[in-house]
């Protein structure tokens, strides 16, 4: 019995590894699907995420947040494929999925950082549409 569970677990792990390297990571897809379902619930006319809106969200200067971080780029820099830096001087790994394939694959982490950073930059929570747009943009980067 234990052997069978172990075998299943190992098989699962083996399957998960090659998939995680590609853009279509199942965990990331599940997170996107979750945001999509939430977006549809909020707005029946929701027609899908937009990399372009995500780009604007990333580069625009926002009001309402902390004065030190008016834009996402305040810490993540203008180029998402490059490392950023926190206000305390610590390196932030690139947000672009192409150079950092682990991005947006851990659900708790995704929720945590959107909660923190949307508040710091926008002074409010991000909507599910904004979160999906942001991820969609980063998937193109």
């Amino acid at each position, binding site marked *: 019995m234990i052997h069978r569970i172990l075998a299943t677990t190992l098989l699962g792990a083996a399957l998960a590894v090659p998939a995680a390297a590609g853009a279509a990571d199942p965990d990331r897809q599940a997170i996107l699907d979750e945001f999509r379902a939430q977006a549809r619930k909020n707005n029946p006319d929701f027609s899908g995420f937009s990399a372009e809106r995500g780009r604007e969200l990333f580069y625009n200067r926002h009001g309402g947040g902390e*004065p030190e*971080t008016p834009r996402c780029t305040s810490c993540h820099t203008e180029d998402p494929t490059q490392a950023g830096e*926190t*206000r*305390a001087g*610590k390196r932030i790994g690139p947000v672009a999925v192409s150079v950092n394939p682990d991005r947006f694959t851990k659900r708790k982490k995704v929720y945590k950082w959107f*909660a923190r950073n949307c508040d*710091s930059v926008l002074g409010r929570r991000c909507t599910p549409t904004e979160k999906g747009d942001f991820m969609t943009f980063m998937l193109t980067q």
Partner: protein
Amino acid sequence: MIKRTMAFMLGVAALAATPALADGGAERVPLVTNTKAKKECSACHMAFQPAFLPADAWKTMMRNLDEHFGENAFLMPETKKAIARYYTSHAPKKAGPMLLTPEGETTQRITETSGWRNAHREVKPGAFKAGDVGAKANCPACHKKASKGVYEDD
């Protein structure tokens, strides 16, 4: 045997929790040993050691993570509780003057304590903004052995 190993490990942990002279006589500030604290705090900055602030300062800080030095450092309640417990139980209960501001006030900012200010008196203000340093909070930029708890005159 397992019990003995455990007891030994606990003993080492207890020793590590008291400041010790090591590394050629340099004073070592005990590093953060709590896994959650290490992981969560060091996501944005080095995991500052409990010894740097009095327990009540850490307590206040952990209660106000939504306004953490101009940023929202939101944590899940159970994670927050565990980290708060770690810091308040490992930090000095009673603050000596070096852990307070020169005015004798409790502060959440390590760089406002008399101890920090005295130790950095000879550092030019511009040095904290220069190059890879970026901020006073970036101790390891100058203290190359900070990850070992050693903060000598670098």
